[in-house]
């Protein structure tokens, strides 16, 4: 091709001779590309799943992306289920842990193709120019998604806006570039791997024309990348389990030791103190649960009143959007459908519910649950956990716990529940 004949100084990164690593070549890039194709597809799908798990179409209080338009096209295709109860724990654990584990693969992939960034001429054709613009969506998008995700799970909210819309819309912008890239490049990558299995030697623009003497084989370099992923896996995956496995997640947030011991010594998303919940407002004398029906019928219940209602038990996990989760805790309390019964709904006819917390600020101080969640016999307004009354940090006097729902929909310090009507 003519552009190879253009005069470029060998000391400039626009010259192929500038790039000296003997590891670069179609095999290395193709293997990493195929791993990312699978891995990022799983990340994208589990991300969309997590988005659906919030039931954003149910109520404006659940919806942090009201302008989603067609991007929520799939939401009406199914109702977020309550079975299996560990569903969100699994999908979101996979989403975050896999994202962390893929970081070395992503960095290696970007390193392996960096000479192309500087290749001249900038565009060989209109299609090539568009491809390079599309690569900005791809590279900018993937780094944006990984960075916002990693910062959010570490509670470092330095990104410019709310995490949910940034990560959700950013994912779609990235996906636009990703699909184009996969359609153009995946066949090339697969062909490269097949050809090389059949004994073809490495050739092409990624191969350094004047490589340094190797210090590591291509397989060794790939092993290094895999070793990095393995290191991240063993120091992260434990945050989806209880002690002692959690202790292995030494650098990840919500890894390490459990908060305190005893029946309530399991992970806390937001402490009572951090949400401004005082002992005075949750005391037996002050706290009342207000249960409201659509016609304005209202029932006010103290904690003692709630204890007089039929109590039921359910073993359910807590799973956070940040990727950590607990194993099943043994919750005991009043079934949500029984509370719906107090304001006139017969068994099996319980409607959606809007749950409001004592909490005065924070995105999910109010949350809506869908009728299928309310009707599930394991969905509780819990008063006890693991045989003891709830602690303030776990939502005393009463909290919601629903199978397979994201953690923030399990409202703590519940003050009011409005069944039916417009949420």
């Amino acid at each position, binding site marked *: *091709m003519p552009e190879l*004949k253009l005069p470029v100084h060998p000391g400039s990164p626009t010259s192929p001779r500038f790039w000296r690593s003997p590891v670069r070549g179609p095999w290395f890039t193709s293997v990493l590309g195929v791993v990312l194709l699978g891995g990022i597809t799983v990340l994208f799908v589990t991300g969309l799943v997590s988005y659906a798990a919030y039931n954003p179409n149910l109520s404006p209080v659940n919806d942090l992306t009201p302008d989603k338009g067609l991007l929520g096209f799939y939401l009406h295709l199914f109702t977020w289920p309550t079975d299996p109860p560990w569903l969100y724990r699994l999908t979101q654990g996979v989403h975050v842990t896999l994202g962390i584990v893929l970081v070395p693969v992503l960095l290696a992939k970007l390193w392996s193709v960096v000479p192309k960034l500087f290749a001249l001429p900038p565009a060989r054709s209109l299609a090539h120019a568009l491809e390079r613009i599309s690569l900005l969506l791809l590279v900018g998008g993937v780094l944006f998604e990984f960075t916002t995700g990693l910062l959010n799970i570490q509670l470092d909210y330095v990104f410019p806006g709310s995490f949910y819309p940034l990560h959700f819309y950013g994912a779609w912008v990235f*996906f636009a570039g990703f699909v184009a890239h996969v359609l153009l490049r995946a066949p090339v990558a697969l062909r490269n791997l097949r050809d090389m299995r059949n004994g073809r030697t490495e050739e092409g623009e990624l191969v350094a024309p004047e490589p340094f003497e190797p210090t590591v084989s291509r397989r060794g370099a790939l092993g290094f990348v895999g070793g990095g992923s393995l290191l991240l896996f063993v120091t992260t995956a434990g945050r989806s389990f209880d002690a002692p496995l959690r202790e292995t997640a030494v650098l990840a947030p919500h890894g390490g030791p459990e908060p305190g011991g005893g029946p309530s010594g399991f992970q806390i998303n937001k402490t009572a103190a951090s949400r401004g919940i005082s002992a005075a407002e949750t005391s037996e004398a002050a706290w009342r649960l207000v249960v409201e029906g659509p016609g304005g019928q209202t029932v006010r219940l103290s904690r003692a009143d709630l204890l007089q209602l039929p109590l039921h038990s359910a073993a359910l996990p807590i799973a956070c959007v940040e990727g950590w989760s607990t194993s099943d805790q043994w919750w005991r309390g009043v079934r949500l459908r029984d509370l719906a019964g107090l304001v006139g709904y017969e068994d099996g006819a319980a409607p959606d519910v809007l749950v409001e917390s004592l909490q005065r600020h924070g995105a999910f101080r109010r949350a809506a649950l869908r009728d299928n969640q309310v009707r599930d016999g394991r969905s509780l307004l819990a008063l006890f956990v693991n045989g003891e009354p709830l602690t303030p940090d776990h939502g005393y006097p009463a909290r919601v716990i629903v199978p397979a729902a994201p953690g923030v929909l399990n409202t703590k310090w519940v003050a009011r529940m409005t069944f039916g009507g417009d949420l």
Partner: protein
Amino acid sequence: MTRRAGRSVGSGSSGSSVRAVLRRPYRRVVVGSPLQLLLFVCSFALAGYAGVRLLADGWFGVALWFVGAALVHDLVLLPLYALADRALLRGFGAVGRRAWVQYVRVPAALSVLLLLMWFPLISGRVAGRYEAVAGLPGDGFLARWLLITAVLFGGSAALLVWRAGWAERSTGLRSATNERPPDVH
């Protein structure tokens, strides 16, 4: 695409390439595959649809983060670690131990990777919030990162010593075998 390019590099004589270069300015803009153009139009349409929503709330900051992420990675981070690696390689080459570079490169890269990914926790910049919100100690991450780094370098050094010893033993063994008179059968 790649195949065609590869073949033309291999088969095209330098004369025809020069002619192609000379002819280039007078030719019309090369459009490329119409199928690819269609693909990019679809891709940009979706990116635009999601992009206006992404940028709706403070477009400048978001655009800065989006484009900045790519620029910082490609033009700062990658050159930095590539230069560090070359310096390391040169250093080991200068003392005639080029093969040992792996034993520093691997633990150093893994340690830096962990630092980069968990910087908010390791640096302690979110320690206060983490403690207040999650009820967990926020100050242990630096110590644990240093410990992991020590284990990585220690393990690497142990491996080097073990391999060096093994290599010495096997060369010793080989020379001993060579000195021994061949067995008579």
